[in-house]
């Protein structure tokens, strides 16, 4: 992906852009809001990674400016402030997702992939989600693996939907906590592992191959 990283902390910007480049992304760094708008006028980016606290122009203001100019590219906001009220402000301003520093680069990568993918859904019939042989219909609360209808608990169904929505890319623990449970905290119990395990058991009950890929330290993926 072609990414625009807006970050005034030069050291952090270098570390993050190197890590992202290691994941095959092209990264352009802008040190403040004006530089970001300039860069965005010159080049076309797939997504923007934006620090909340910037000199001269706040991150939220920059998002508003971009949106006013008709820019619909995904914006992922980074912040050192761990408070949820900032998150609300960021999302209200027009950002698509919001994460709190320090964030592992894998998390940023997974979220950017999800955001870009979500842009691609527009116009498509979003009634059913398909991931390989798995079919999920969130509206009807039903799912199939091949020809077998799955009998899933509420949580298992939400988990499978989220994985199917992002089929082909990894979904991190934090993303699952936010989107399946609605939690903005990390429980001490391994609830995700337990839930994935029980979902796996149901998926493979009839001897079908396990479609869920685990990547330690990153998250889970449904094969496409």
């Amino acid at each position, binding site marked *: 992906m072609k990414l625009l990283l807006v970050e005034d902390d030069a050291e952090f910007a270098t570390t993050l852009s190197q890590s992202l480049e290691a994941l095959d992304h092209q990264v352009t760094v802008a040190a403040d809001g004006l530089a970001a708008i300039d860069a965005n006028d010159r080049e076309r980016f797939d997504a923007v990674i934006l620090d909340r606290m910037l000199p001269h122009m706040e991150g939220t203001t920059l998002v508003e400016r971009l949106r006013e100019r008709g820019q619909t590219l995904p914006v992922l906001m980074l912040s050192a402030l761990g408070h949820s*009220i900032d998150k609300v402000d960021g999302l209200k301003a027009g950002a698509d997702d919001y994460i709190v520093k320090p964030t592992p680069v894998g998390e940023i990568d997974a979220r950017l992939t999800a955001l870009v993918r979500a842009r691609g859904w527009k116009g498509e019939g979003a009634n059913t989600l398909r991931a390989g042989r798995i079919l999920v219909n969130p509206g009807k609360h039903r799912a199939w693996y091949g020809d077998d209808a799955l009998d899933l608990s509420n949580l298992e169904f939400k988990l499978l939907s989220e994985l199917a929505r992002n089929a082909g890319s990894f979904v991190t623990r934090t993303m699952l906590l936010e989107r399946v449970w*609605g939690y903005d905290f990390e429980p001490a*119990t391994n609830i995700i592992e337990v839930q994935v395990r029980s979902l796996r058991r149901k998926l493979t009950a009839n001897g079908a191959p396990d479609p869920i890929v685990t990547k330690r*330290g990153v998250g889970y993926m449904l094969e496409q």
Partner: protein
Amino acid sequence: MTSLRSLLFAFLALFAAATALTGYATYSASHAAITGLVDARIDLVADAITDGVRPGDAAAILARIDRFAHRRDTGDIGFELEDVRGRRLGGNVALARAIAPGYSSVSGSDGIAGLTAGRAERRDVGGGLRLITIAETEPVDGYAFIRARNYMIGFGAIMLIVLTGTATFALIVRRRIGEVRATAAAIVNGDLQHRVPVPARGGAFAAQAEAFNHMLDRVAALMDGLRQVSSEVAHDLRTPLARLRGRLALAADAPTAAAMRHEIEQATEQCDMLLATFSAILRIAEVEGGDRRARFAPVDLASLMGEVIETLRDAAAETGHRLTGAATHPVQIIGDRGLLAQALVNLVENALTHTPAGSVVTVAVAQDRGRASVCVADNGLGIAPADHARALRRFGRLDPSRHRPGHGLGLPLVQAIAHLHGGALTLGDAGPGLAATISLTVAPRGVEGPATADLRS
């Protein structure tokens, strides 16, 4: 103890007594003055009637009476001449009763035409004759009544004005005190932004409200400073820790690390523990800051409990615990669903961590009129009542060796969340085991939020 109220009533009673006494004294003084004047007049007239008349000359006296009765200045005076036995010899009035010697009062009941109240004088005029002279004390009919009524109205009005004034004053004082009390209550309930309204016209109340608000501003600034420092410390330490954790994860993946994997995993776990501690510190600071109040919405505790049980049931089973809880009817409160979920998850995880395998953890949501409660009880060893307060203190872990998992911030965080919602966290004995109860205020009737609608769909 003298209360303001009893002081006020004593003051009003004394004031009423003094006013009534003054009214009575004024009335009697004017009454006595009029009586004195009338007595002097009839004395003078009686002198004039008898002046120069031979003692016993009844005819001469009657002739004078007749003359006086037709004079403009004495035309209103009544006279009666009697003999020594009290028999009427003549005069311009006829008395129904005997009049005592000297001065006395007469009234309308004495049957004297045209007289409602007056004075009479009986004197011996010599020669076995008595002269009775009578004059009206009232310039108009019912004068005494009118006078009494006017006094009542006048002094009554004074009483009324003072009573109304005092009541209004008491009301204003009570309202101002009420505002200060409401502010104090709001502060105690966690709304640190609340301030006493300052009266626009200034004065002592405005000065007092400003002083109070100034104190609250100062307290809030100090608390903000403290919170900020703790947040910044936690935050600044979190970044290098996250980096360290990343390095460990990379190291664990390296093929050469096979022999060290167990050690690396343990180090990663320690990192996670520290990160969890910092997250808890930051979360407590956030909750105590009160900003999350902006996200309050109707929440059904029963459905929240159902979701938490579904989330944790299998994890509990893996450690040999049984997690139960039956949702009955919805219990609506106004709150932050995410935080309430975190509080409940924390309490259940706390119970799972501190009880041996085979224990049962029970969650119950109840409503008793205006109060809602969420109780997480286990049948483990419990906490001695003497240690309950310490368990709620930050880092106040009861395990002296600190070998057990947990950062000692779980219960304080739950407590902070309860406080944010105007509630409280209490620890009790589940006999055996620990019962942790969050008590909250039920949402007012008619509040039916998207939370319940969501659950039912």
